[in-house]
Protein backbone atom coordinates (compact mmCIF):
# COMPACT_ATOMS: atom_id res chain seq x y z
CA UNK A 1 0.00 0.00 0.00
CA UNK A 2 1.54 3.33 -0.98
CA UNK A 3 2.25 5.65 1.85
CA UNK A 4 0.05 8.70 1.83
CA UNK A 5 2.02 11.85 1.62
CA UNK A 6 1.82 13.91 4.77
CA UNK A 7 1.69 17.56 3.91
CA UNK A 8 2.51 20.40 6.15
CA UNK A 9 -0.80 21.81 7.38
CA UNK A 10 -1.61 25.42 6.85
CA UNK A 11 -2.93 25.85 10.37
CA UNK A 12 0.35 27.07 11.82
CA UNK A 13 1.73 28.66 8.73
CA UNK A 14 2.02 32.42 8.83
CA UNK A 15 0.76 32.41 5.25
CA UNK A 16 -2.70 31.20 6.22
CA UNK A 17 -5.37 31.57 3.64
CA UNK A 18 -7.64 34.43 4.43
CA UNK A 19 -11.09 34.98 3.05
CA UNK A 20 -11.72 38.20 1.16
CA UNK A 21 -13.70 39.52 4.11
CA UNK A 22 -10.98 38.64 6.63
CA UNK A 23 -8.39 40.35 4.47
CA UNK A 24 -10.57 43.43 4.11
CA UNK A 25 -11.12 43.67 7.88
CA UNK A 26 -7.44 43.19 8.61
CA UNK A 27 -6.32 45.85 6.17
CA UNK A 28 -8.78 48.55 7.17
CA UNK A 29 -7.17 51.93 7.72
CA UNK A 30 -7.80 53.80 11.02
CA UNK A 31 -10.13 56.25 9.22
CA UNK A 32 -12.16 53.35 7.81
CA UNK A 33 -12.37 51.80 11.27
CA UNK A 34 -13.65 55.09 12.66
CA UNK A 35 -16.44 55.07 10.07
CA UNK A 36 -17.19 51.36 10.34
CA UNK A 37 -20.64 50.05 11.18
CA UNK A 38 -21.11 46.69 12.77
CA UNK A 39 -24.57 45.59 11.60
CA UNK A 40 -23.07 42.40 10.17
CA UNK A 41 -22.06 41.22 13.64
CA UNK A 42 -24.96 40.09 15.79
CA UNK A 43 -23.13 40.26 19.14
CA UNK A 44 -21.67 43.70 18.57
CA UNK A 45 -24.94 45.10 17.20
CA UNK A 46 -26.71 43.78 20.28
CA UNK A 47 -24.20 45.37 22.67
CA UNK A 48 -24.44 48.71 20.88
CA UNK A 49 -28.24 48.54 20.78
CA UNK A 50 -28.53 47.71 24.48
CA UNK A 51 -26.43 50.70 25.52
CA UNK A 52 -27.80 53.29 23.09
CA UNK A 53 -30.46 54.34 25.65
CA UNK A 54 -27.72 56.00 27.69
CA UNK A 55 -26.27 58.95 25.74
CA UNK A 56 -22.75 58.24 24.48
CA UNK A 57 -21.47 61.50 25.93
CA UNK A 58 -22.63 60.46 29.40
CA UNK A 59 -21.16 56.96 29.06
CA UNK A 60 -17.81 58.46 28.04
CA UNK A 61 -17.91 60.82 31.01
CA UNK A 62 -18.62 57.85 33.28
CA UNK A 63 -15.67 55.99 31.75
CA UNK A 64 -13.36 58.93 32.49
CA UNK A 65 -14.75 59.07 36.01
CA UNK A 66 -14.02 55.36 36.46
CA UNK A 67 -10.46 55.84 35.14
CA UNK A 68 -9.88 58.59 37.65
CA UNK A 69 -11.23 56.39 40.46
CA UNK A 70 -8.97 53.58 39.28
CA UNK A 71 -5.96 55.94 39.26
CA UNK A 72 -6.69 56.92 42.85
CA UNK A 73 -7.28 53.34 44.00
CA UNK A 74 -4.70 51.26 45.84
Amino acid at each position, binding site marked *: MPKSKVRKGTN*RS*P*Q*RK*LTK*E*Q*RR*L*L*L*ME*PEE*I*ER*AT*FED*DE*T*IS*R*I*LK*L*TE*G*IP*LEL*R*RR*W*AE*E*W*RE*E*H*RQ*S*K
Partner: protein
Amino acid sequence: METNFVIGVVWESRQILVQLLRLCKQFGVTFVIPEIALAEARASLVARIDRQLNALQHLRQWLNDIARAAEMVSLVESAKQSLNEIEAELQKRKINAQEAIDTFAKACTVISLTPQIWTKAYVRWKVNLPPFKELDCLVFETLMDFLKKPKAPLTMFLTMDAEDFHHPEIHEAFRQRKALMLFDPYDVIAQFRKFYGVA
Protein backbone atom coordinates in the same frame (compact mmCIF):
# COMPACT_ATOMS: atom_id res chain seq x y z
CA MET B 1 -7.91 41.97 27.86
CA GLU B 2 -8.73 43.84 31.02
CA THR B 3 -11.38 46.19 32.42
CA ASN B 4 -10.50 49.07 30.09
CA PHE B 5 -11.43 46.94 27.10
CA VAL B 6 -14.89 46.06 28.46
CA ILE B 7 -15.50 49.69 29.33
CA GLY B 8 -14.14 50.81 25.96
CA VAL B 9 -16.58 48.54 24.09
CA VAL B 10 -19.68 48.54 26.28
CA TRP B 11 -19.62 52.07 27.72
CA GLU B 12 -17.69 54.10 25.22
CA SER B 13 -18.40 52.23 21.96
CA ARG B 14 -14.81 52.94 20.92
CA GLN B 15 -14.62 52.02 17.24
CA ILE B 16 -11.12 50.53 17.33
CA LEU B 17 -11.96 48.26 20.26
CA VAL B 18 -15.25 47.18 18.73
CA GLN B 19 -13.32 46.47 15.53
CA LEU B 20 -10.84 44.31 17.47
CA LEU B 21 -13.71 42.33 18.94
CA ARG B 22 -15.08 41.81 15.42
CA LEU B 23 -11.65 40.77 14.12
CA CYS B 24 -11.24 38.21 16.89
CA LYS B 25 -14.65 36.73 16.07
CA GLN B 26 -13.96 36.69 12.33
CA PHE B 27 -10.59 35.02 12.79
CA GLY B 28 -11.70 32.60 15.47
CA VAL B 29 -9.26 34.15 17.93
CA THR B 30 -9.86 33.24 21.56
CA PHE B 31 -10.74 36.41 23.35
CA VAL B 32 -9.88 36.11 27.01
CA ILE B 33 -11.06 38.28 29.88
CA PRO B 34 -10.47 37.76 33.61
CA GLU B 35 -13.69 37.37 35.57
CA ILE B 36 -12.57 40.14 37.92
CA ALA B 37 -12.25 42.64 35.05
CA LEU B 38 -15.73 41.83 33.85
CA ALA B 39 -17.10 42.16 37.38
CA GLU B 40 -15.37 45.50 37.84
CA ALA B 41 -16.82 46.89 34.61
CA ARG B 42 -20.29 45.62 35.51
CA ALA B 43 -20.22 46.96 39.07
CA SER B 44 -18.94 50.38 38.01
CA LEU B 45 -21.56 50.80 35.32
CA VAL B 46 -24.44 49.63 37.52
CA ALA B 47 -23.19 51.86 40.35
CA ARG B 48 -23.53 54.91 38.13
CA ILE B 49 -27.11 54.10 37.20
CA ASP B 50 -27.85 53.38 40.86
CA ARG B 51 -26.42 56.79 41.69
CA GLN B 52 -29.07 58.37 39.43
CA LEU B 53 -31.78 56.22 41.02
CA ASN B 54 -30.67 57.31 44.50
CA ALA B 55 -30.79 60.94 43.41
CA LEU B 56 -34.42 60.39 42.39
CA GLN B 57 -35.14 59.00 45.83
CA HIS B 58 -33.67 62.11 47.43
CA LEU B 59 -35.80 64.28 45.18
CA ARG B 60 -38.90 62.44 46.36
CA GLN B 61 -37.97 63.17 49.96
CA TRP B 62 -37.63 66.89 49.18
CA LEU B 63 -40.92 66.82 47.35
CA ASN B 64 -42.63 65.33 50.42
CA ASP B 65 -41.39 68.28 52.46
CA ILE B 66 -42.53 70.74 49.83
CA ALA B 67 -45.98 69.10 49.67
CA ARG B 68 -46.65 70.04 53.30
CA ALA B 69 -47.92 73.35 51.95
CA ALA B 70 -51.46 72.65 50.67
CA GLU B 71 -51.10 74.82 47.57
CA MET B 72 -48.10 72.70 46.44
CA VAL B 73 -49.76 69.29 46.67
CA SER B 74 -50.99 69.03 43.09
CA LEU B 75 -47.70 70.36 41.70
CA VAL B 76 -45.73 67.85 43.76
CA GLU B 77 -48.02 65.04 42.63
CA SER B 78 -47.38 65.84 39.00
CA ALA B 79 -43.61 66.08 39.65
CA LYS B 80 -43.72 62.68 41.36
CA GLN B 81 -45.54 61.24 38.37
CA SER B 82 -42.67 62.42 36.15
CA LEU B 83 -40.14 60.97 38.59
CA ASN B 84 -41.89 57.60 38.36
CA GLU B 85 -41.53 57.68 34.60
CA ILE B 86 -37.85 58.61 34.86
CA GLU B 87 -37.27 55.83 37.36
CA ALA B 88 -38.88 53.28 35.07
CA GLU B 89 -36.58 54.44 32.27
CA LEU B 90 -33.49 54.23 34.49
CA GLN B 91 -34.43 50.72 35.63
CA LYS B 92 -34.71 49.75 31.96
CA ARG B 93 -31.25 51.24 31.31
CA LYS B 94 -29.85 49.26 34.21
CA ILE B 95 -31.26 45.98 32.89
CA ASN B 96 -29.97 46.77 29.38
CA ALA B 97 -26.51 47.69 30.68
CA GLN B 98 -26.24 44.39 32.52
CA GLU B 99 -27.45 42.53 29.47
CA ALA B 100 -24.84 44.31 27.34
CA ILE B 101 -22.10 43.12 29.71
CA ASP B 102 -23.56 39.59 29.60
CA THR B 103 -23.60 39.67 25.80
CA PHE B 104 -19.98 40.82 25.79
CA ALA B 105 -19.07 38.04 28.24
CA LYS B 106 -20.67 35.41 26.00
CA ALA B 107 -18.33 36.44 23.18
CA CYS B 108 -15.28 35.86 25.41
CA THR B 109 -13.55 33.15 27.36
CA VAL B 110 -13.98 34.30 30.92
CA ILE B 111 -11.20 33.12 33.27
CA SER B 112 -12.51 32.43 36.74
CA LEU B 113 -10.96 33.88 39.83
CA THR B 114 -9.92 30.89 41.95
CA PRO B 115 -8.82 31.01 45.61
CA GLN B 116 -5.27 30.17 44.45
CA ILE B 117 -5.19 33.12 42.06
CA TRP B 118 -6.69 35.35 44.70
CA THR B 119 -4.00 34.31 47.22
CA LYS B 120 -1.17 34.98 44.76
CA ALA B 121 -2.66 38.34 43.86
CA TYR B 122 -3.10 39.26 47.50
CA VAL B 123 0.54 38.46 48.26
CA ARG B 124 1.69 40.43 45.19
CA TRP B 125 -0.40 43.38 46.28
CA LYS B 126 0.74 43.20 49.91
CA VAL B 127 4.45 43.11 49.05
CA ASN B 128 3.93 46.00 46.66
CA LEU B 129 4.91 44.37 43.38
CA PRO B 130 3.73 45.71 40.02
CA PRO B 131 1.02 46.29 38.90
CA PHE B 132 0.62 47.44 42.56
CA LYS B 133 -3.14 47.99 42.70
CA GLU B 134 -5.25 45.22 44.18
CA LEU B 135 -7.59 44.82 41.20
CA ASP B 136 -4.71 44.96 38.72
CA CYS B 137 -2.85 42.30 40.72
CA LEU B 138 -5.96 40.10 40.44
CA VAL B 139 -6.09 40.67 36.67
CA PHE B 140 -2.38 39.98 36.32
CA GLU B 141 -2.36 36.76 38.36
CA THR B 142 -5.47 35.51 36.55
CA LEU B 143 -3.72 35.98 33.22
CA MET B 144 -0.49 34.41 34.48
CA ASP B 145 -2.43 31.38 35.61
CA PHE B 146 -4.24 31.11 32.28
CA LEU B 147 -0.96 31.38 30.35
CA LYS B 148 0.83 28.69 32.36
CA LYS B 149 0.67 26.38 29.37
CA PRO B 150 1.21 27.99 25.97
CA LYS B 151 -2.09 27.71 24.16
CA ALA B 152 -1.74 29.52 20.86
CA PRO B 153 0.95 30.44 18.35
CA LEU B 154 0.23 34.11 19.01
CA THR B 155 -0.83 35.44 22.40
CA MET B 156 -1.27 39.09 23.25
CA PHE B 157 -2.40 41.00 26.29
CA LEU B 158 -3.87 44.37 25.43
CA THR B 159 -4.14 46.89 28.23
CA MET B 160 -4.77 50.59 27.96
CA ASP B 161 -3.46 50.99 31.51
CA ALA B 162 0.23 51.60 30.82
CA GLU B 163 0.54 53.52 34.08
CA ASP B 164 0.00 50.34 36.09
CA PHE B 165 1.21 47.58 33.76
CA HIS B 166 4.19 49.09 31.94
CA HIS B 167 6.89 47.73 34.26
CA PRO B 168 9.88 45.56 33.29
CA GLU B 169 8.76 42.77 35.69
CA ILE B 170 5.35 42.57 34.04
CA HIS B 171 6.82 42.57 30.51
CA GLU B 172 9.21 39.81 31.57
CA ALA B 173 6.42 37.73 33.10
CA PHE B 174 4.43 37.87 29.85
CA ARG B 175 7.57 37.23 27.79
CA GLN B 176 8.25 34.08 29.81
CA ARG B 177 4.76 32.90 28.92
CA LYS B 178 5.37 33.68 25.27
CA ALA B 179 2.86 36.49 25.25
CA LEU B 180 3.18 40.08 24.15
CA MET B 181 1.91 42.93 26.27
CA LEU B 182 0.60 45.79 24.14
CA PHE B 183 -0.85 49.16 25.04
CA ASP B 184 -2.25 50.34 21.73
CA PRO B 185 -5.14 48.54 20.00
CA TYR B 186 -3.62 49.37 16.60
CA ASP B 187 -0.50 47.42 17.62
CA VAL B 188 -2.72 44.36 18.05
CA ILE B 189 -3.92 44.77 14.47
CA ALA B 190 -0.31 45.19 13.34
CA GLN B 191 0.58 41.90 15.07
CA PHE B 192 -2.38 40.17 13.40
CA ARG B 193 -1.21 41.45 10.02
CA LYS B 194 2.31 40.20 10.66
CA PHE B 195 1.01 36.84 11.82
CA TYR B 196 -1.20 36.39 8.78
CA GLY B 197 1.53 37.61 6.45
CA VAL B 198 -0.31 40.67 5.16
CA ALA B 199 1.88 43.28 6.83
